[in-house]
């Protein structure tokens, strides 16, 4: 089972690298942000697998924080600043 977990982490890491290609290449900032979200989700998966594999249950907490804050990053990217106050 632990060998399966290690290979799974490797495959997820490879999937993360594929997302990396899109971050580096993606023609617009939206593509890059999108790929960053996918990297975040892959990272959550990797952390969960590592948490079981390396027997560090705290890594599940790290995965939770990562999942929650990836949404914050996407919102910051698309937030529209108010120019001056409305009225």
């Amino acid at each position, binding site marked *: *089972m632990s060998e*399966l*977990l290690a290979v*799974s982490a490797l*495959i*997820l890491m*490879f*999937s*993360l690298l*594929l*997302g990396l*290609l*899109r971050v580096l290449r993606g023609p*617009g900032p*939206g*593509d890059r*942000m*999108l*790929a960053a*979200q*996918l990297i975040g*989700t*892959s990272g*959550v*998966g990797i952390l*969960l*697998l590592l948490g*079981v594999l390396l027997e560090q*249950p705290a890594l*599940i*907490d790290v*995965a*939770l924080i990562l*999942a*929650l804050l*990836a*949404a914050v990053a*996407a*919102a910051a*990217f*698309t937030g529209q600043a108010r120019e001056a106050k409305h009225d």
Partner: protein
Amino acid sequence: MIDAVSAGLIVLGLGFYLAGSIGLLRLPDLYSRLHALTKADNLGLGLLTAGLALHSQELFTIAKLLLIWLAVLAAGAASAHLIARHARRQETGR
């Protein structure tokens, strides 16, 4: 036996993750690539957490894994919407 089911679920989840990444690379434009993102979020992470939950068999861990999956689901859906709307506005010009 449980290990076999858990392993199967994890492998299936990996398949969806890879499908998401390959879709991200191969699909033609931003709006279609967003679909690839949600495949990894929903089924990829979902099957992965299901497999790990079966493997761990501790209630608190299972609850945390479920919470992570639900958070990623909802946050991923909202993020995809926000990114798509932002890109649309960039295109049409506000």
